[in-house]
Each structure stands twice: as structure tokens, then as C-alpha cells.
């Protein structure tokens, strides 16, 4: 029953988690040392170009995310939730999606957004506070970030019901839906209700749990006794446990789960076991609840380093390729940074404009009042008694 055991988080803080021999058996195709390993159920066969592309995605995602942290530190963003350490989980699953698939993200899915080819500026606009993160979610097939934990799992479950009702499943080119959430979300009622829904309606939905081991400061031990991939089974939803720092494994497992969903075989849950290398957000202080030894343990499992080792060993890429990717990542970062800095503050009227499809008279009156009041403040003062008429 080795695969039922989850490494206990009861170890003394100064001691890192047990070595990998004690870890539950997850699907792994690439070891932390960068060696390709075989799995009885999952394999991957991509073109050389696609293999290199995954590296490009990993590096650019990491650099763009680091820029988010930098922009926050420089006062250009109000907040940034870093995905450092989770690149493989996001890129592997993001690239496993087919064009017709729909994504419901949480709020840390910059890497998935990158893989979908969606303009990333919306996420930066959201965290800069110039808007609430709105995009053309229909065209993008990528929904808005969801801040209330697990709320999006129900939206995805409903959307997936609609996909099935539209008859868009049951074939190889059917549609699938994927919802991203974390380990903390599994404690929320909405997550459990979404599993009930997806199960009883046999919806084409993949729950993609990035278990980064922390819900702000709380470890897995405070969220569940049975890991999410096993809990899913209790809902009649197959659960698959995957090494979340292995981009090949997350790709293979997610592709399998999505194809199962699009084929009409119903929902599944992928638990990607990974680690949040940064604090919860730029507002968090992770030194209060974890130590360097634990971080060192996970640095040794870095998703980008291991993939780079494998690419080099396989002769799929060399130093000049890696250098070119670094250069491109730098260009991406500079371009994005310039656009973020150029984002202007919204007009006061904008807070009123989109609340309703049909704006009630009372809101329209408040809008006019706010606009007029703001304009009155901008009038040059001519001293007491002056009146704007």
C-alpha cells in the first residue's frame, strides 16, 4: 500500500521531507536528475520541435512570473502570486489542451495562459488594479481568474454540463473543460459539490489540482487525510497522481484525462504534486512557516533544470539554443514590462458601466453625479464663493 502513503508533514521543521523513496508513487517520466523513466500506463512521443517548445514555455513562464514579482516590488503592481516551481505543472497541462478546450483558472495560472497564446497583459492589469481582469473569455476559451477559492470549480462543472448538452463530446475532436485549483481548494464545499456534479452528470471535465503543498501557511496535513487524487475516487471520478515538476508526465497525464473527457467517458482529477517556491503572494512572509532546508529539498527537484538536462543529454538542444531562449525571454519580459508601465488608470465612470446589461436609473444617476463631482474637483480654484455654473 505504498502508494496510499503521503509523506507526513509532521517532521520537525529543520528536517526536510523524506527522500523520494517514501513518496507516493506518482506518474513520472523524467526523474529529478533528468533521466527518462518508463511508466506502464503513460508515455509521450513529441516531435523534437515540440520538446524544445516545452523548454521555451518553461523558461519564458518563469521569467515573466519573476517580472511580476519585480513589478510588485517596484510599486507597479499591487500584488503578485508567483508560480515559481509550478512551471512544469502549468506548461505540461497547458500544452496538453487542444484548441477547442476551455480553461477555468484559479489566479496563479500565468503559465497556462502563456501556453494558450492569450495576451498576458490582462493578468497584470488585474494585479495593477486598473481593471478586474476582464478579457474576451469566449474567444480565448480561458476564463477570468477566480479569487474566491474553488468558486471556479462549479462554473467549470456547469460549463462542462453545457458542453455535453450541446452534444460536443463523444468524438476525438470533442470539447473538454479543465479547471485549475490548488490543494487548499479541496477543503472548500464548492470543490466537493463540483465533483458531485461532474460525476453524476458524467461531464467532460478535468480537475487539475496543483498541489503546491501550501494554502498560504497551512500544509496538506490541515487540508486532508486522504490526498485529492484518492478522494476523487470516492466521487466516482478517477484520480491520477503525477509528478508536478515533470513537464513530460503532466503533459501525458493531462492529455489522457482530456481525451477521456472529450470522448464522453467523463470527468477525472489530476493531482500534480509540486511545490510553491515563493510565498503565497508578494504580501506573504513564508519564513514564518517554513525553512531553507525544505526549499533546498525542492530546489533539487526543479522542473526547468531537470528538463534542460534531459534535452541536452538527448541532443535535442544545446547551449546556443538555451542561450537563444534566455535572450527571447528577456525580450518578452522587457516588452511586457513596458506595456504594464503604460497601463493607465481607468475613468471614474467605468465602475458603473458594466454592472448591469440594462443600467438602472439609480446607477445612471450615481454615475453622472460621480463624474460631475470629480470634474468639479479638477476646476481651478478661484477662492471661496466660486461656483461652477
Amino acid at each position, binding site marked *: 500500500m505504498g502508494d496510499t502513503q503521503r509523506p507526513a508533514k509532521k517532521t520537525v521543521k529543520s528536517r526536510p521531507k523524506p527522500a523520494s523513496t517514501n513518496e507516493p508513487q506518482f506518474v513520472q517520466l523524467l526523474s529529478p536528475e533528468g533521466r527518462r523513466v518508463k511508466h506502464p500506463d503513460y508515455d509521450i512521443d513529441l516531435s523534437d520541435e515540440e520538446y524544445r517548445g516545452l523548454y521555451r514555455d518553461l523558461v519564458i513562464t518563469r521569467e515573466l512570473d519573476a517580472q511580476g514579482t519585480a513589478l510588485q516590488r517596484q510599486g507597479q503592481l499591487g500584488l503578485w502570486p508567483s508560480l515559481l516551481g509550478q512551471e512544469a505543472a502549468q506548461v505540461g497541462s497547458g500544452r496538453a489542451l487542444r484548441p477547442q478546450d476551455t480553461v477555468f483558472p484559479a489566479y496563479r495560472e500565468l503559465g497556462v495562459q502563456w501556453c494558450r497564446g492569450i495576451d498576458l497583459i490582462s493578468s497584470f492589469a488585474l494585479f495593477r488594479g486598473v481593471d478586474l481582469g476582464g478579457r474576451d473569455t469566449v474567444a480565448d476559451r480561458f476564463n477570468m481568474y477566480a479569487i474566491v477559492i474553488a468558486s471556479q470549480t462549479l462554473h467549470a462543472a456547469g460549463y462542462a454540463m453545457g458542453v455535453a448538452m450541446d452534444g460536443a463530446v463523444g468524438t476525438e475532436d470533442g470539447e473538454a473543460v479543465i479547471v485549475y485549483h490548488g490543494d487548499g481548494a479541496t477543503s472548500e464545499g464548492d470543490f466537493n459539490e463540483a465533483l458531485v456534479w461532474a460525476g453524476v452528470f458524467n461531464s467532460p471535465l478535468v480537475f487539475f489540482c496543483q498541489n503546491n503543498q501550501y494554502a498560504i501557511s497551512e500544509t496538506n496535513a490541515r487540508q486532508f487525510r486522504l490526498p485529492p487524487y484518492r478522494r476523487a475516487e470516492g466521487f466516482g471520478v478517477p484520480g491520477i497522481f503525477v509528478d508536478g515538476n515533470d513537464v513530460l508526465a503532466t503533459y501525458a497525464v493531462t492529455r489522457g484525462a482530456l481525451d477521456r473527457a472529450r470522448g464522453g467517458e467523463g470527468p477525472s482529477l489530476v493531482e500534480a504534486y509540486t511545490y510553491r517556491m515563493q510565498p503565497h503572494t508578494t504580501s506573504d512572509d513564508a519564513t514564518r512557516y517554513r525553512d531553507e532546508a525544505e526549499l533546498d529539498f525542492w530546489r533539487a527537484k526543479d522542473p526547468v533544470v531537470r528538463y534542460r538536462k534531459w534535452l541536452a543529454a538527448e541532443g535535442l538542444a544545446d547551449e546556443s539554443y538555451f542561450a537563444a531562449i534566455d535572450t527571447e525571454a528577456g525580450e518578452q519580459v522587457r516588452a511586457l514590462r513596458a506595456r504594464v508601465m503604460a497601463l493607465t488608470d481607468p475613468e471614474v465612470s467605468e465602475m458603473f458601466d458594466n454592472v448591469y*446589461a440594462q443600467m438602472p436609473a439609480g446607477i445612471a444617476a450615481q454615475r453622472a453625479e460621480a463624474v460631475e463631482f470629480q470634474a468639479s474637483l479638477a476646476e481651478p480654484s478661484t477662492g471661496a464663493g466660486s461656483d461652477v455654473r
Partner: protein
Amino acid sequence: MTTMSMIKGLNEGLRRVLEDQPKSLVMGEDVGRLGGVFRVTDGLQKDFGSDRIIDTPLAESGIIGTAIGLAMRGYRPICEIQFDGFVYPAFDQLVSQLAKIPNRSGGRIRLPVVVRIPYGGGIGAIEHHSESPEAYFAHTAGLKVVTCSNPADAYWMIQQAAAGDDPVIFFEPKRRYHGKGEVDTEKPGLDLHRARTVREGRTATLIAYGPTVDVAENAAKAAAEEGLDLEVVDLRSLSPIDWEPLFASVRKTGRAVVVHEAPGNVGIGAEVAARLTEECFYSLEAPVLRVTGYDVPYPASRLEDDYLPNLDRVLDAVDRSLEH
């Protein structure tokens, strides 16, 4: 003109929505095979199929959350929350998701979701089956909140709510469910968000909605026997409130009494009183008074006649208003 109960009016109204709007759905607990615990959806699953009249798992947050996802996919869900007191598990999905997603999206996403909630007391029910939670939702920007008081409004308002692109919380006064009335199924009623003057008068204005419209009308009839000429206005829409008819009425009568079952504290009546004071200050002869449920949890059913606004309490308030 046809005579029907409010339940029949809702049922027929839903039927027309389902016929006219191929993307409309009815979803909730027991709404399919059973036809709903109040039979509002009776027969709909038989006629429209189980793909459109969906018996859901017993999970209110799930009902609203998945309705949002269905709406994102292009469907137009009409959800039923079985009883007023069962809506709270869905509170986040209603106030933080349904209400805010359209705004968050910059107007790109519209969520045409109607949430029907049987509400109010007077049926001798066990706890959590007699509440009036409308103020929570009227307080939430992004939601529209309406309530019908008679079969004709039930028939038309449910269709109007389902026709719009904004989320609507649709409160149904369950103690009026079996009351019958004339319904003109040919001529559409008043717009969804308009208040209606139910009875004209000059002495004072009674402002009511949902289950208390009957109470106010009966009070006005009784008062008429004593020579008092009371006006009765049915708000119908609680968010937005149609203010002009209220202002016009109070400018005429100079006195207003608001009547609702929900507790008075921070309730709809408080907002009405504040706005009337702001807009009609120089017309008022007396403070705007409220006759409401007390600021306590809904009591055991043997006490509900003492808790709910009734004819005597309304007439007493009118007397107090006239003493000013």
C-alpha cells in the same frame, strides 16, 4: 382573462419561457419528476424533457455555481432554491460570482440567470422555511430583485425576468401561492421593475411588496370603513426600486407606512424611508413609519401571527402617522 392560482401562473409563465427560449433551463432540487415541493414546475419535465428540467444534486451553491457555468456556455438557467432559509449555502455564488462576474468581465460576460425563491411566513412551517432574505440581495449590486404579489404578476414577471440578460432573484410569497386571481395571458403586464399603485387614496400611503400587499389592501379596506382613504403601492421590484410613483404618492398624501415581513433593521423599509425623507422632506407630515417583522429570528410557528405584520399593526401605524 383566466382565473388561476399563483402557482399556476408561475407554471404557465415558465412554460412560455421554455417554449420561446430554446436555451432556457429549469434546474433545482425536486423540480423534475416531483414538479417541485410546491408543484410550481409540475409537468414541465414531462413536456420539455430531463435535459431542460434538471433535478440537481442537493447542493445550493452547486445549483447557482453550475448555472453560472451553463450561462457562460450560452444557456439561460432558471434555478429554484427550495426554501428561503436554504439559500445561504449559495451566498458566495450569488453575491460574489453571479452578481459580480459580468462587471468583472467588463461587460463581456452576461449571466441571464433567474433564481426563484419561495419566501416568507404564514404557513405554519418549521424553522428556516419562513424567512424573508430579500435585503441581502437587494444590497448586492449586480443582482436585480423582484417579487410578485398576485397570479397575474407571477405569470408575467417570471417571463420578464427570464427575458433579460441580468441575474434576477425572484421571490415568490409562498403563503399567496394558492390564492387565485384574474390573469390576462394576452396583454403583457407592467414592466418588471415598475411599482404599481394598487389602490388610490389621499390620507396616507401604504408601501408593501410580495406577501404584505394583501395585508396592506385589507388594511386599506378596513380603514375606508372608518373614513380613511389609504393609498397602497406594490413595489414589485426591490432592486432597482421604482421611486417616482412613491415620491408622487407621498407628495400627495404626506404620510407613508412601509410594510414587510423581513426584520426592520437595515431592511427594504429603511431604504424606502431614507429616500422618501431625502426626496419628499417638505411634503412629509410625519416620519415614515415601518411595520415589519421584529429584529429577532423568525419565531416558532405558533408565534408567527404575532411576528408578521397584520391588519391591526398596519392600522395602528397609520393612526400614529396621523397623530403627527
